[in-house]
């Protein structure tokens, strides 16, 4: 039996082997866990010596100077380059392919056709699906090899309409049904019922580093260099794909040029590179071009949301109902689009159904809060349409339906400070009158808000080691990845805090499955919340050993010793530089190990927030400008306020792209993807960015881990679109219901508004 900190909640006297719940991107699994975590007292709230204080990225200088090695910068002698033949049609049958001709092409060393690898197909179901692959001495030679394949196709009629797919029963996932209470009764009790249909578009991740892998075999063992969000997941997938023991696969990922959910898995490019490397006996790189990236590296799926809300005159919600049709593409999984509607507000009667339509478009992948970004747009616009009908203040409407426990199962929240977020949003919300008064000519101005709920509690397993050498400096070792979120920095801060060291005396070594223990995926806002506690535990283990050594050396009781400011400090007076204690050891090292403990039993761990957007709309041209966004989020303890603010700003900016300009366009007849380049697909530029005010509640979740920190990567992108749409309603009275809000959508909403007013008048 091990005793955990009494502040942890749940069962303190946990057995070593327990059953616990794990959540990633809203997907829950139960798993066995050996509890290795030692009891560490929770740190007090607020800024400590290092944790909670702004820290510049520990790898910032090396990244900014262009010194670090991303996957495209890794060089191995003798590397071959792969090119992939992809279907030019949304649905087709391959009628001819000349593999032998490609094999004879200059510089070509290996060719894979359909049948050589499970993921290569002669009946592609989407534009961009891999059909064949060539490895050659250069990428140019490999592309020439593709042309030598002289593929011919019989195009087939694609299925593109997700509603039609649902009618035909063409589904990847679902239908997923959820009911609580009785929606019929709830609607009967309502004084006002609002029904609306919302649509969200498919958007593309477009991390600037394209997906790629460099694979090499050595003695029957595979090494994969790749930019990934999950070193250990790639290891597992590749071991399975090639029938290897997992320890015979090494995954190296020291730096990643962005991911946003699209790099959660190994991907076909990694399997293709590994198979070509196996056949040629040489290292093979398979790197997607930008155009391939926008065809076959994932996307946020489009949705159609048919929503109904019923409420009493005082704003109390009596019923919420939603039908969600998610156009997942040819493959994928059904994210929880109904999640916000089920979880964000207290409402007794809720009914949802979600369909994951299988259509002939590229498969979706997780994209920064999958499902919740789309679902929050629908729900939070619907709430504002209701507020308008009830003539209630939108913020007050949300307050009146505040949930104090998880409405889906009654579980208490481990920590919920959404009310505090609302309070802190008030000054931003109160700017409404001033903003509206700045309307002039055809430019109307308004303010809107939207709430946010998401996961982000992380979970076990995750492990870290901390090594302290005789110079008293510490190295954190763990085989995790930093996709650009500042993981190295946050982990260094946590170890520095626990060891009482300045930040510059801590290094973090990560990104190599052969050189560190198992670590969590950098997805689902789970990195800091999963990995941070393990790093603190490992540093705590090392600190305990240092205190033990110091106690013996200076003949003191261990309990009077603590580590701070790079010194071992005695409560009875006296202190010694850490290196004086560790210096006794010569070449010996102090090795601490730590593991992520379980999440609190019987509690729901979630993140919350609210954003307030200010917009200007030109009602003559339909141009929409977002002028200011205030983002207030509750993610528990904030480890690095500087990095956290950057994350929030980045999430808001990506959210604004989703709201206003980004859209994967298809040829409506053929299903061909038209937006393959970064001029056709419009991500925000520096000129598109409004003022962004970031506020973090920064209260440790007292029930969650020895750190009390939750994830922040995803929450800030969730409410942005709805906040902007609601601001547009405030400015113009028009109900925007479809993303992106381009001029066409804006003018449509304005016309509908005029027609409705004329109808009333007539």
């Amino acid at each position, binding site marked *: 039996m091990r005793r955990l900190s009494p502040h942890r909640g749940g069962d303190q006297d946990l057995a070593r082997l327990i059953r616990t719940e794990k959540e990633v991107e809203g997907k829950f699994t139960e798993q066995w866990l050996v509890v290795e975590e030692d009891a560490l007292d929770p740190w007090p709230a607020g800024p400590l010596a290092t944790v909670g204080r702004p820290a510049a990225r520990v790898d910032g200088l090396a990244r900014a100077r262009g010194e670090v090695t991303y996957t495209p910068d890794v060089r191995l002698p003798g590397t071959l380059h792969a090119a992939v033949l992809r279907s030019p049609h949304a649905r087709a049958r391959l009628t001819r392919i000349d593999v032998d001709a490609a094999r004879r092409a200059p510089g070509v060393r290996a060719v894979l056709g359909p049948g050589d690898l499970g993921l290569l197909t002669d009946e592609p179901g989407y534009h961009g699906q891999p059909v064949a692959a060539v490895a050659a001495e250069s990428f140019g030679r490999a592309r020439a090899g593709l042309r030598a394949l002289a593929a011919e196709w019989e195009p087939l009629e694609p299925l593109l309409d997700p509603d039609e797919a649902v009618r035909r029963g063409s589904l990847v996932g679902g239908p997923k049904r959820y009911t609580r209470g009785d929606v019929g009764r709830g609607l009967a009790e309502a004084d006002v019922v609002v029904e609306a249909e919302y649509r969200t578009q498919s958007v593309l991740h477009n991390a600037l580093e394209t997906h790629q892998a460099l694979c090499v075999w050595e003695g029957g063992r595979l090494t994969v260099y790749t930019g990934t969000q999950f070193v250990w997941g790639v290891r597992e997938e590749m071991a399975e794909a090639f029938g290897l023991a997992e320890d015979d696969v090494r995954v190296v990922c020291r730096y990643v040029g962005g991911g946003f959910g699209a790099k959660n898995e190994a991907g076909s490019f990694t399997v293709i590179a590994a198979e070509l490397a196996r056949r040629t006996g040489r290292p093979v790189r398979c790197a997607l071009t930008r155009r391939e990236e926008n065809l076959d590296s994932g996307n946020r799926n489009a949705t159609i949301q048919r929503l109904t809300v019923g409420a009493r005159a005082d704003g109390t919600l009596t019923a919420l109902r939603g039908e969600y049709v998610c156009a997942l593409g040819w493959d994928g999984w059904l994210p929880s689009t109904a999640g916000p509607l089920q979880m964000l507000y207290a409402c007794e009667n809720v009914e949802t159904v979600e369909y994951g339509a299988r259509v002939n478009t590229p498969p979706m992948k997780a994209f920064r809060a999958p499902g919740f970004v789309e679902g929050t747009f629908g729900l939070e616009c619907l709430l504002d349409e209701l507020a308008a009908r009830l003539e209630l203040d939108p913020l007050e409407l949300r307050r009146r339906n505040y949930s104090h426990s998880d409405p889906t199962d009654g579980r208490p929240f481990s920590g919920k400070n959404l009310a505090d977020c609302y309070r802190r949003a008030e000054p931003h919300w109160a700017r409404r009158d001033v903003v509206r008064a700045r309307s002039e000519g055809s430019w109307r101005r308004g303010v809107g808000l939207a709430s946010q709920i998401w996961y982000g509690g992380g979970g076990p397993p995750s492990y870290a080691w901390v090594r302290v050498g005789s110079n008293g400096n510490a190295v954190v070792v763990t085989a995790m990845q930093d996709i650009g979120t500042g993981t190295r920095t946050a982990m260094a801060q946590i170890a520095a805090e626990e060891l009482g060291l300045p930040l510059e005396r801590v290094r973090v070594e990560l990104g190599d499955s052969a050189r560190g223990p198992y670590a969590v995926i950098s997805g689902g806002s789970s990195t800091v919340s999963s990995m941070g506690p393990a790093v603190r535990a490992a540093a705590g283990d090392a600190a305990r050993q240092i205190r033990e050594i110091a106690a013996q050396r200076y003949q003191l009781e261990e309990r009077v010793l603590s580590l701070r400011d790079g010194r071992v400090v005695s409560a009875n007076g006296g202190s010694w530089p850490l290196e004086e204690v560790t210096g006794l050891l010569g070449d010996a090292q102090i090795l601490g190990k730590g593991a992520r403990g379980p999440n609190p039993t019987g509690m729901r761990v979630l993140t919350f927030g609210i954003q307030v957007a200010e917009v200007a709309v030109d009602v003559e041209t339909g141009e929409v400008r977002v002028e200011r966004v205030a983002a207030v989020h509750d993610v528990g303890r904030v480890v690095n306020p500087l990095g956290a603010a950057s994350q929030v700003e980045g999430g808001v900016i990506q959210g604004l792209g989703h709201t206003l300009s980004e859209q994967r366009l298809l040829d409506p007849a053929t299903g061909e993807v038209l937006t393959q*380049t970064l001029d056709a697909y419009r991500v925000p530029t520096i000129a598109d960015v409004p003022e962004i005010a970031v506020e973090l509640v920064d209260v440790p979740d007292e029930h969650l881990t020895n750190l009390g920190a939750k994830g922040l990567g995803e929450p800030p992108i969730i409410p942005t679109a709805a906040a902007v749409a609601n601001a547009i309603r405030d400015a113009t009275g028009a109900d925007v219901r479809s993303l992106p809000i381009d001029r066409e959508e804006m003018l449509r909403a304005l016309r509908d508004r005029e027609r409705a007013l004329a109808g009333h008048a007539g």
Partner: protein
Amino acid sequence: MPLELTINGGRYDVDVPVLATLAETLREELGLTGTKIACGEGHCGACTVMLDGVPTLSCITLAHAVGRRDVTTIEGLRDHPLVAAFVRADALQCGFCTPGQIVSAAALVHDDPEPDGETIRHRMAGNLCRCGAYPRIEEAIKTWRG
């Protein structure tokens, strides 16, 4: 085809095909991998270098078209105060676009040592950052001298 280039003040002899881009030549022939290729079609700015001080997209510039112009890459700007300013302001997240941002910014502050927000937004709009570090990039450029 043989070619002589002046890069960051040094002379380089390379032998690259007529159609080789400057970006490929820097990265593959000379090992100057600080210059990144993110789109390869001149849409994102990650490959930005300077030719005689003018920000230029190296992924759509032929190496043989450089001529006698001086090439400046991020490797030649490693000690530029902008680098420290970017780190201080947290003007990078994943860092993949950052070398290109810094090259563009270095050309900007050379032309206009105290650019206002509008100038920065205008001059930097060709450098995409998918992580959305833009507010801090603006901040870094405004405070580049420390």
